[in-house]
């Protein structure tokens, strides 16, 4: 290895990765007067509105509009793509894409290595975890407990909701309002601080969500045997009623006016929505229903980390440097375990495997590259060896779909990808034996499930020989009735689901590629099976004709109790450097400082000990605020 050239300037904090977590940390540190450098591996800076227009052009032109399709995918800086996922056969790993997949199931999730990170293509779902999710071991004998509980995280959730700009009604989001039979009766108490509410009013429920709610609410689903409820033995079936609820979304709607909102103890004026940038600064103050949140919001009404980064850069209290085209390569440590420098590869020409090797120094170092990249870099640098947990306990929400045709037109392909879901099964005593889950009501017909509406056009033209008015009418009639429900099931932390590295697999820049071993346990499979049954019962009640089909040739196909199902990844990559008190069983301390390295912090969803049923972004953002406080303290 060549000798790195030392940077002349050193910083209070160097952050690796300009995504959700890195942006929040930078903003909070700069606000306290710190000097911060962000190293971002990606080549682009979409905050420049011209670059953002380029992303849009790419999106309009892309044949397969996958989550990463608008964004740069350099051969020298690959991002995992959903198009690379194939079944893993036997002992031979699948090396199609960036990931080296060891199986037995392929890890179907992706992320984005670019300025703004995966926030560029997220949907915007901003759910809090529930009190039970922090006590999985105590309550259900599964997984692990968190080192803190829901109430400790609650003020940070408020900050995260304010930062992202979440649209929802607090009164609609309590466990009770969601129709959950909570595993402990007190869970709903003080779920929100009194007087707290989300910064913006909810995004209205889509028509299909209201259609499902009207006839589907109250559909009873038996989740299993309930042995105890509120301390009283109550044998028999626990029957949970389906209840459709609005989903909190990181997407601009109408700000709350005339009501002061207390955010983490601080009174706030009405929220000011942030939309587009540069010459397009006047668009995106409200969601307009462009129906392409994934992969890209054309008007930037959806939150991305670029908004927080722009705030951080505008704050002159401290100093923020953002350096793109800089791949963190090696974290160097001194004998006492402290990090002494960060070696990175700065490439002048995107796509060309040429780079300058440089070293930067700082008081504190933060890895914020996402759960997979954090683990890969830490493993490549030989860090965090006290526990054997680094890279392990990789979790995702295995994502399964059910789909059918409604009796009536339900108006799909308008508005955000999903405005509403069914949260009734996000907790319950059934978690002793099967995973909890959330149902997401899709708003784009069979788009993810069957490639609609393009596949419908192809079939009607190619097989049914339709054209002209007849084609339009039949297409309209069919597409308008498409219903799709997504299932997101929780996974438990398991040591065998893991990210490792192998010298045999490197990318063109000489960086380790993530080698991933992954499976979905019987616990999650049982949850998926229950969720599938719940969907079928719901469809029966609604008169929706079920068209769900799982094919044994699907890459994510598996069987459970004699039935076959197909899962995909949901991009919710969690758990590779979990927090904990005991250095033997966790990688980082509760404030996300590494047990083994005093001035190294690992942030992001990788810190989460369990994944629960909430999309992890809001939780990782809340934990980002927590970590920022701790780092600011450590720097004093």
């Amino acid at each position, binding site marked *: 290895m060549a000798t790195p050239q030392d940077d002349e300037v050193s910083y209070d904090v160097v952050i690796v990765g300009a995504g959700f977590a890195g942006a929040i940390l930078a903003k909070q540190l700069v606000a306290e007067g710190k000097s911060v450098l962000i190293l971002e591996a990606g080549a682009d800076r979409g905050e420049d509105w011209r670059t953002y227009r380029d992303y849009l052009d790419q999106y309009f032109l892309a044949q397969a509009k996958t989550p990463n399709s608008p964004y740069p995918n350099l051969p020298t800086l690959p991002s995992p793509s959903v198009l690379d996922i194939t079944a893993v056969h036997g002992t031979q790993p699948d090396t199609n894409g960036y990931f080296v997949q060891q199986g037995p199931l392929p890890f179907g999730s992706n992320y984005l290595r670019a300025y703004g990170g995966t926030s560029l293509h997220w949907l915007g779902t901003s759910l809090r975890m529930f009190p039970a999710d922090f006590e999985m071991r105590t309550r259900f004998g599964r997984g692990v407990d968190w080192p803190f509980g829901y109430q400790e995280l609650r003020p940070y959730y408020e900050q995260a909701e304010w930062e992202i700009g979440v649209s929802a009604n607090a009164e609609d989001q309590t466990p009770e309002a969601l129709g959950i039979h909570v595993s402990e009766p007190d869970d709903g108490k003080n779920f929100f601080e009194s007087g707290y509410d989300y910064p913006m009013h909810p995004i209205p429920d889509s028509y299909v969500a209201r259609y499902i709610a009207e006839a589907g609410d109250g559909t009873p689903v038996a989740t299993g045997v309930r042995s105890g409820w509120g301390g009283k033995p109550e044998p028999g079936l626990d029957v949970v009623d389906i209840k459709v609820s609005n989903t909190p979304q990181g997407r601009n709607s109408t700000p709350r006016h005339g009501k002061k909102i207390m955010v983490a103890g601080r009174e706030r004026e009405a929220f000011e929505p942030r939309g587009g940038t540069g*010459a397009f600064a*006047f*668009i995106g103050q409200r969601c307009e229903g462009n129906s392409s949140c994934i992969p890209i919001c054309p008007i930037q009404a959806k939150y991305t980390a670029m908004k927080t980064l722009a705030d951080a850069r*505008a704050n002159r209290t401290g100093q923020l440097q953002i350096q793109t085209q800089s791949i963190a390569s090696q974290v160097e440590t001194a004998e006492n375990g402290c990090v002494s420098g960060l070696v990175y590869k700065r490439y002048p020409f995107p796509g060309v495997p040429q780079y300058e090797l440089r070293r930067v120094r700082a008081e504190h170092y933060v890895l914020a590259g996402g759960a997979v990249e954090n683990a890969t870099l830490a493993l490549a640098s030989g860090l965090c060896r006290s526990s054997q947990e680094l890279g392990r306990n990789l979790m995702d929400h295995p994502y399964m779909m059910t789909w059918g045709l409604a009796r009536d037109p339900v108006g799909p392909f308008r508005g955000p990808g999903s405005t509403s879901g069914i949260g009734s099964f996000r907790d319950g005593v059934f978690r002793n034996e099967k995973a909890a889950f959330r149902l997401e009501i899709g708003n784009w017909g069979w788009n993810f499930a069957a490639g609609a509406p393009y596949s419908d056009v192809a079939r009607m033209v190619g097989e049914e020989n339709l054209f002209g008015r007849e084609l339009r009418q039949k297409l309209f009639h069919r597409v308008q009735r498409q219903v799709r429900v997504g299932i997101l099931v929780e996974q438990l932390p398991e040591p065998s689901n893991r990210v490792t590295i192998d010298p045999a697999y490197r990318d063109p820049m000489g960086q380790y590629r993530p080698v991933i071993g992954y499976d979905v346990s019987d616990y999650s499979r049982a949850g998926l099976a229950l969720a599938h049954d719940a969907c079928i019962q719901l469809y029966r009640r609604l008169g929706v004709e079920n068209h769900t089909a799982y094919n044994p040739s699907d890459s994510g196909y598996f069987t459970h109790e004699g039935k076959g199902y197909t899962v995909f990844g949901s991009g919710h990559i969690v758990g590779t450097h979990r927090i904990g008190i005991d250095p033997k069983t966790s990688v980082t301390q509760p404030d996300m400082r590494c047990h083994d390295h005093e001035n190294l912090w690992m942030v992001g969803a990788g810190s989460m000990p369990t994944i629960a049923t909430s999309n992890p972004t809001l939780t990782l953002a809340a934990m980002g605020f927590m970590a920022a406080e701790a780092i600011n303290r450590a720097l004093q």
Partner: protein
Amino acid sequence: MSEDRTLEGDCRELHDLLQKALILELSTIPPYATACYSIKEEGQYDRAAPEIVNAEPIEVLRQVMVEEMLHMVLVANVMNAIGGRPTLNDPKQLPHYPQPILDGKGPTLHLRRFTPQQIKAFREVERASHDPTDAASDDYDTIGEFYLHTIQRLKAACCLHGDKAVFTGHVDRQIGPGDYYGAGGKIIVVDSLESACTALEEILEEGEGAHHGDCADDGDRIPGPDDRQDIAHFFKFNGILHSRYYFAEDPSDGPPSGDDLAVDWRAVWPMRDDPKPGDYDDNPEIASLDARFNATWSALLDGLDAAFNDEKKRLAELVPLMYRLKQDAQRLMRVPLPDTAGQTAGPTWQYIGKRRLGPSVS
């Protein structure tokens, strides 16, 4: 002023002036929108270079349009505050193009595609004027003077009869920040002479920037962390003509000094000037597309009329209609007219009365 002015008479005069203002703001939207929609999008111009051609002038025109819409809401708020009834679907008052404005004293508005001549014409509409004698009498010949005149009349009426006697409207009829869907500036709830003047001055400033001295700015902040000022319509149009953005600090009598504003005057549908309903008599297919456009336009006007008169919630429902209006207009602009040298059809912007809209697919 003479003492024989009655409260009733003054209010009637103010209602008439504000109704005129409302229709004036409305009249600018079809020409601005026609020019904006005539610009080709998404590589229809050149498939080898498929960036959205003219994304920037489209956005500048869109910004002006949404501000005109905000102006309509502000005028309606002032009108409602003094007990008036904003009317938007009275065929006798609605514009027909070519349409002279300000009783023939102002420029004439045309429905034309995006051309430098048309943008120059737009610039004239928004040109600032500071002739206080014109504003004091009713001899106004610019929009600015017209609003100054209206403000003066409003102040005079309040002075004579007292604010309370003039501001009698019910607060429920006010459209506030919680109702108004979209950007374009700050919505002002009007309940006093002061807030009424603020609202009317906001219209003036966004249009011509007149009250801000010698710079291009309009006194509004550009959303975002950079804390910069927006510029007035006159300068937005001038920026398109110069292919360059203005900075708020740029002197109003000089050229813009900001970044490049990419404009391609060729990537435009060759729409015929001032299309009229009779133009399509011999062509039923084009006539039906135009009828469809007019149905959407009429539904939008009906919806706005309802929203300004007690049905505020209708405002949010109008957003999809505006998208549909654009779609319907562009559908027309893609159809070549027979017996012309490649000119295409265009929307006629006719109000055709209250009717139910059919499905968007036929």
